[in-house]
């Protein structure tokens, strides 16, 4: 176990609160797993290309609730106007702006745990913390469960269209940066609909880091559109895991944008449990400097007639390092599945690195599957063409790389948000060389 793992393990309180027995069991067994196996390391297959050196070097310490009283800081405003915004500061519920629509419940996680909201126990208990043979591989999930207390519960009742809202995450700067744990649980009942934007921004340089688990349960015919926009400080780590359980005919759409962060890891997993479910996963990542962004996307087809699409685009400049792992597993009985995977990358500098790996396993019949992964450079003919019209070489390259990433933002249905995110991508577009 690494020194950091030992330090953090010692900080996990023996008993966090006065919860029901199932909750204390969940926390203590997770704490036990973390104390025994610690954080992931390069020997874990899923962490082969992503080391935790940045965390080691910056000496990030595990935050416990006692050390982090929420002060009256305000988060930056959401990218577009929302009727409902929930501000989260350093992983904790700060406040809610706007009214909840009828049929939607939103509670800080601590309250939800106290009230023992129906379905919450099952959802929390469903988090798989032994996805690989090596328990250290799920070290961040174990840590998150051991520290379970902060976060949000969102519930949308059957048949309700709850519209859209924003979870506005912010992290503060500290002399000695901290890592905060937070848990989001989203339960969308039968035929209900929800759209949410998660926005991550650091309020200052040298910001705190986050370890967030986002769990979703979609009942029959339910729909969730999940947009994520993260532009954190280059010294911050953002470790997230999104787990989506999809029942029959449910639809999950993910559109993510990684523009910032020093060490970013996102495990995005959709489990298609019922027939006819759709998982549509899209993302763009832009890296410069020494930033490291690792996306692991996976869809498990466990029922017939499901459709999954994975579309990810990445641009790496400077000494940036991107990792992209896309996996599809079509389980026995998931006949008539359609699965598409596409990952394209542009390297803008000789020192940038992209590791991309598509995986496809099929154990069912009548499956339509396609996958492709490319790593390339910009089309020099196109650069010249734009220059002959008056754009400088830098402008031409920025326009071409932005266009490459726009193919992801174009999937946003809100034209205003689409343009704002495209502009923000242009702002951070890595330079060549």
């Amino acid at each position, binding site marked *: 176990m690494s020194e950091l793992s030992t330090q953090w393990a010692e900080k996990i309180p023996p008993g966090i609160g006065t919860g029901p027995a199932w909750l204390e069991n969940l926390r203590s067994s997770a704490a036990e797993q973390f104390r025994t196996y610690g954080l992931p390391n390069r020997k874990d297959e899923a962490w082969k290309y992503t080391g935790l050196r940045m965390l080691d070097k910056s000496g990030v310490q595990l935050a416990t609730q006692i050390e982090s009283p929420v002060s009256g800081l305000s988060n930056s405003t959401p990218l577009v106007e929302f009727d409902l915004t929930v501000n989260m500061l350093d992983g904790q519920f700060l406040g809610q702006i706007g009214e909840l629509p009828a049929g939607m419940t939103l509670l800080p996680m601590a309250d939800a745990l106290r009230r023992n909201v129906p379905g919450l126990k099952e959802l929390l208990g469903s988090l798989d913390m032994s996805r690989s043979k090596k328990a250290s591989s799920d070290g961040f999930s174990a840590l998150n469960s051991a520290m379970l207390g902060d976060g949000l519960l969102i519930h949308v009742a059957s048949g309700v269209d709850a519209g859209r809202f924003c979870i506005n995450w912010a992290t503060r700067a500290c002399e000695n940066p901290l890592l905060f744990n937070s848990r989001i649980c989203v339960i969308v009942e039968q035929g209900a609909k929800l759209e949410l934007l998660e926005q991550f921004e650091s309020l200052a340089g040298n910001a705190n880091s986050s370890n967030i688990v986002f769990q979703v349960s979609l009942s029959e015919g339910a729909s969730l559109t999940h947009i994520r926009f993260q532009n954190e400080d280059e010294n911050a780590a953002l470790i997230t895991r999104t787990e989506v359980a999809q029942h029959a005919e449910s639809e999950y759409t993910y559109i993510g944008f990684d523009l910032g962060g020093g060490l970013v890891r996102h495990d995005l997993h959709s489990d298609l449990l019922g027939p006819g479910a759709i998982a549509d996963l899209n993302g763009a990542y832009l890296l410069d400097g020494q930033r490291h962004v690792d996306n692991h996307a996976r869809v498990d087809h466990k029922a017939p007639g499901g459709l999954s699409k994975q579309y990810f685009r990445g641009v790496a400049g400077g000494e940036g390092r991107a990792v992209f792992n896309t996996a599809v597993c079509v389980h026995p009985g998931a006949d008539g599945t359609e699965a598409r995977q596409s990952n394209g990358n542009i390297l803008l500098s000789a020192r940038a690195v992209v590791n991309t790996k598509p995986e496809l396993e099929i154990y069912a019949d009548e499956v339509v599957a396609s996958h492709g992964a490319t790593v390339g450079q910009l*089309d*020099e*003919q*196109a650069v*010249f*063409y*734009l*220059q*002959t*019209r*008056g*754009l*400088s*070489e830098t*402008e*031409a390259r920025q*326009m*071409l790389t932005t*266009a*490459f990433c*726009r*193919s992801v933002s174009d999937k946003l249905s809100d034209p205003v948000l689409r343009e704002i995110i495209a502009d923000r991508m242009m702002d951070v577009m890595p330079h060549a060389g």
Partner: protein
Amino acid sequence: MLKINNLHATVAGKEILKGLNLEINAGEIHAIMGPNGAGKSTLGYVLAGREGYEVTAGEVIFNGKNLLELEPDERACEGVFLAFQYPVEIPGVNNTYFLRAALNAQRKYRGEPELDSVGFLRLVREKLKVLHIGDELLHRAVNEGFSGGEKKRNEIFQMAVLEPMLAVLDETDSGLDIDALKTVAEGVNRLRSPDRGMIVVTHYQRLLDYIVPDKVHVLADGKLVATGGADLALKLEEQGYAWLEDGGIASLDAETAGRTASQ
């Protein structure tokens, strides 16, 4: 406006232009004709500043400036426009967005105020009307999935919006049917102006039925070997380029003269 003196250029180590001289005054249209491999497209790329086209001797003076010292975008901002033989497809970049960015880059260079989207659209509508082009090209990505004719019309449209001082049209007629050719030629003719010079590079005389040049030059083996009026193009159409090997321009004139006399 443009003065090319003794221009030598190599591509991948091979000399393509071997001492080309050409002078163009404002308001003139010059046609450059010649067989394949003579260096016609190379001339266009050298003027536009394409990487890999190395000038080994000679100079190009454009409005008193040494053009060869400038980056491709600076040349564009100074007023040089190259209409490509094969316009490049750029997926994901909207045609209108691209053209506005290009126009504003040029305006900024010249110290003129940038156009906002309303002002730009007004300008675009005006140009489309003059050129008799519909607005369907505006909403698509630059040249992506365009037919040959659409690509060439888009080049002319860009030229109309950017209003260059010197336009170089590189085989704009290639791959066009007669209707598309007429549309393109009409567009070019509408852009004729006393302040603007044009170089029309073409393999066939056909285009020159619609764009009547002030001067016609024959480019062969990296040099201009003949210069004449619009009628020179007709002679070339009749006799091809074989005379280049049979004794040069003198033999062409003699033969043409002979034929004219016998008619």
